[in-house]
């Protein structure tokens, strides 16, 4: 055999180029002349330019590539079991996965559905191939995540919470923010939902904290499965980001779209910040046991992925097209994370509400305190006593921290817009929409409900824009209920019919576990009902008082 002879040389034959293949596939579409295509989901945008498919991939190469990715993922899961991963995994981390993995498959499949909404909007067929692949990708993500969750359920010490996962997703006060996230992808104006909110903002910016930053933390906690699955998921995102950008570029040259684009970039950024930072910030900062001071905090990760990567390199260049960028909101979101303790207050809220959760939250310890103080100076003064109280009150028989007046925590209002509670007290605000009073966590969320989700925007009719609906204040669903009855109704009780799924600790012995009887005797109430019942003068007093906040009492 001569040195120059290779198998490739023997078997190679002339083929068509990738660009040619993509171009011929794009030519499969045509403009119907006998019957018009079914009415698509409407948009108020005008799309006159044909978007280009930057990836130029065809399904013949896509399916084998994805199968290979899958083989790596499932092989890694098998390897993790053979390597006894769960012997060394940190339960503190896996417990938070009960919440995260209850939420995420629905946003994923919602993204698949939303491809139907954009698929017929753009002229030309080129990008439809991109949307097709994204549709199948999102189907992949949703079911691969359901598989991961099942795998945790089968192999982790405490499966309770994983076993009720999709039922819990529909009912829990915390997963409600994930539903807001997902429904935003596929309801209302098709471009607002499926292009700007989903691909331009959620996928381009926030999947980096979701699917890149969070897996790193998982690995630090002995969980190699989550990074395997989610980095594989993230590898599909570049294609989705390309779809989003291409569609954006097909609209951006038409100045009549600028007003709506500015509205939607602002709405989408603020909602993503309020929802994703609350949830993922909590998982990363409070789900970990790794307190290496050299690693990045969530604030530092945010600065890298959202500020530098998205804001500076993706959003700012849009200004050259005449788009006014909402710089103030980016600064405000940053302040909420680094100065106003948004993530820490969210973790605190989830912990106060632990008994109505379907996962365990153990107390942070001295080792954690030191790291938090190092990364967020002033943290200990505000949150140290709270976590001590949580540890102290984690024993069955103690008064549930949610109702324990000794602690000094004051239950928050729910934000009607992002559905995270109004945790940064000084930013609390309210407004009337269609004659009804609503509460909001921030000016950005007030604007979203009152101004963005309306039939008119700055004097321009927006007939395609969605509306907020449903029973958006979770607390209202159980107003006047005893918390034990509410937990039972939620289904957050273990198979013995009495032990709570949630526990305020990681002790795996029956004697340490809380039951319905331990929490019975306290009523839940809707803060909004009380707020609406106030007179205007009383309301002003209540607002002033709320904005002052509260102080956790010392825990001895």
């Amino acid at each position, binding site marked *: 055999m001569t040195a120059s002879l290779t198998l490739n040389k023997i*078997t190679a034959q002339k083929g068509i180029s990738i660009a*040619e293949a993509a171009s*011929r596939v794009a030519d499969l*579409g045509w403009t*119907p002349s006998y*019957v018009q295509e*079914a009415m698509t989901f409407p948009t108020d945008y005008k799309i006159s330019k044909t978007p280009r498919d930057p990836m130029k991939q065809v399904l*013949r190469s896509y*399916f084998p590539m*994805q*199968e290979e990715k*899958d083989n790596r993922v*499932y092989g890694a899961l098998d390897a993790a079991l053979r390597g006894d991963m*769960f*012997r*060394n*995994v*940190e339960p503190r981390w896996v417990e938070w996965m009960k919440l995260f993995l209850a939420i995420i498959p*629905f946003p994923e499949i919602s993204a*698949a*559905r939303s491809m*139907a909404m954009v*698929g017929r909007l753009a002229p030309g067929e080129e990008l439809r191939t991109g949307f*097709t692949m994204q549709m*199948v990708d999102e189907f*992949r993500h949703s*079911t*691969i995540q359901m*598989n991961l969750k099942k795998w945790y359920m089968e*192999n982790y*010490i*405490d*499966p*309770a919470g994983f076993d009720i*996962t*999709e039922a819990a997703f529909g009912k829990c006060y915390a997963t409600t923010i994930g539903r807001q996230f997902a*429904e935003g992808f*596929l*309801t*209302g104006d098709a471009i607002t939902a499926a292009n700007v909110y989903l691909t331009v903002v959620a996928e381009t910016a926030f999947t980096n904290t979701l699917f890149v930053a969070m897996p790193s933390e998982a690995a630090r906690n002995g969980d190699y499965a989550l990074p395997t699955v989610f980095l594989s998921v993230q590898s599909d995102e570049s294609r989705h980001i390309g779809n989003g950008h291409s569609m954006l570029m097909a609209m951006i040259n038409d100045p009549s779209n600028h007003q709506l684009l500015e509205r939607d970039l602002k709405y989408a950024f603020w909602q993503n910040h309020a929802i994703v930072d609350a949830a993922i910030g909590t998982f990363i900062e409070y789900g970990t046991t790794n307190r290496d001071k050299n690693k990045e905090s969530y604030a530092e990760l945010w600065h890298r992925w959202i500020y530098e990567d998205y804001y500076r390199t993706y959003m700012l260049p849009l200004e050259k097209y005449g788009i006014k960028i909402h710089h103030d909101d980016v600064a405000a979101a940053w302040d909420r994370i680094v100065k106003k303790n948004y993530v820490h207050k969210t973790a605190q809220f989830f912990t106060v509400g632990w008994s109505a959760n379907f996962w365990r939250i153990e*107390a942070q310890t*001295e080792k954690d305190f030191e790291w938090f*103080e190092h990364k967020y100076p002033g943290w200990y003064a505000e949150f140290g006593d709270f976590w001590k109280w949580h540890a*102290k009150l*984690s*024993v069955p028989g103690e008064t549930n921290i949610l109702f324990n007046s000794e602690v000094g925590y004051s239950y928050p209002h729910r934000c009607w817009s992002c559905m995270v509670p109004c945790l940064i007290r000084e930013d609390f605000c309210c407004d009337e929409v269609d004659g009804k009073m609503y509460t909001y966590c921030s000016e950005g969320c007030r604007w979203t409900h009152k101004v963005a989700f309306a039939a008119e925007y700055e004097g321009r009719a927006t*007939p395609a824009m*969605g*509306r*907020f*609906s*449903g*029973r958006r204040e979770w607390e209202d*669903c159980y107003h006047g209920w005893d918390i034990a009855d509410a937990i039972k109704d*939620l289904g957050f009780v273990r198979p013995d019919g009495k*032990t709570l799924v949630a526990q305020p600790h990681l*002790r795996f*012995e*029956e004697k*340490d576990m809380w039951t319905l009887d331990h929490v019975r005797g306290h009523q839940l109430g809707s803060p909004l009902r009380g707020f609406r019942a106030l007179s205007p003068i009383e309301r002003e007093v209540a607002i002033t008082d709320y904005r002052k906040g509260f102080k956790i009492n010392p825990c001895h």
Partner: protein
Amino acid sequence: MSAQPSRAAAKPAFVKSGAAGSAVFPGSESRKYNYFEPKGRKATHYEDMTVDVQPDPERYLLQDWIISFPDGTPTYSKDWTAAKSSNWHKFRAVDQEWERTHYQRQSTICGMVQNTIENGRKSGAPARFDAAWVKILQNHLGAYKHAEFGLGTSTMQAQRYGYTQMVNNAILTNSSYKLRFAQDITLYLSEIGLDLPGFDIAAGKQHWLEDPIWQGVRKSIESIMGSNDYLEQYFATNVVFEPLVGELFRSGFLMQAAAAQNDFITPAVVSAAEADYERNLANTVELFHILGEDPTHGAHNIALFNKWLVKHADLAFDAANHLQPIWSQPRVKVTTFNDALGHAKNRIKGIATELGLKVPANLAS
């Protein structure tokens, strides 16, 4: 900072491992998704991956849908089809497809198709195709790829509207199969075109848009794409168009005639679509059978499906008849149009009977 740890009252029990079985406590053995009724004795993996991922107010959605369209229509609405069900959650896809099985199957098909084309081309097969047959592939298989694409985009649209995850995912995989096959044909023709001097890759689209032979098919496809009812789209695709036109052209012509024209490649490429259809048909029959047997809405649904059947069968039958001249074009005749159409009519009759539907008069003979 205080150095006072306050965990004395809560000294942890020392469980070293986070692995299943390392402690026994209430719920420690609850290792199955327990929030839905499996179809069989035990939940299948497909069911675990699929059921209830798309929630609704009847299934745990405590706060209802929280965003609506401007007219008040929620994120998912039962009104998006005229069909009614007393239990939309009953349906399970017969092919049990979830992401891993879908990619495995699609990838296997891609490999099979690509290998067949590559090896065929290496052996110089396209140059040995009968000249009349090459024209048929260029003009008519080239036109037909657009029909497959139309069904793919139609089902891509339809997968947004179903009331449950099971319905939508079955329609989604249907879409994925159709779009792959449309691309399979496109790339196949492009590649053999490299070996066939004068082969006009653009001719297929021209025939699709202008040739009278194809205008019935185009009208039938555009009528499916133009329906505002997602289940009508799904029904018309698999219950009507596929047996009456899709299979007629694929199995009733291409796969039977090709070998006699020295073409062993086309049947292999096309065979994948026949296997895809068997799965899509099984899912479709299961869904429409459930709806037809619905204890409350069965009669309404059967009447509706009969209406859809008449509407789309008229179009598809007309489309099929317009294709007749193609059967005369190969130099070596293997099968007649009438035989193929008779087979197609039997096929649709069988499907309609399975669903308890009345076979339209023009198909009954």
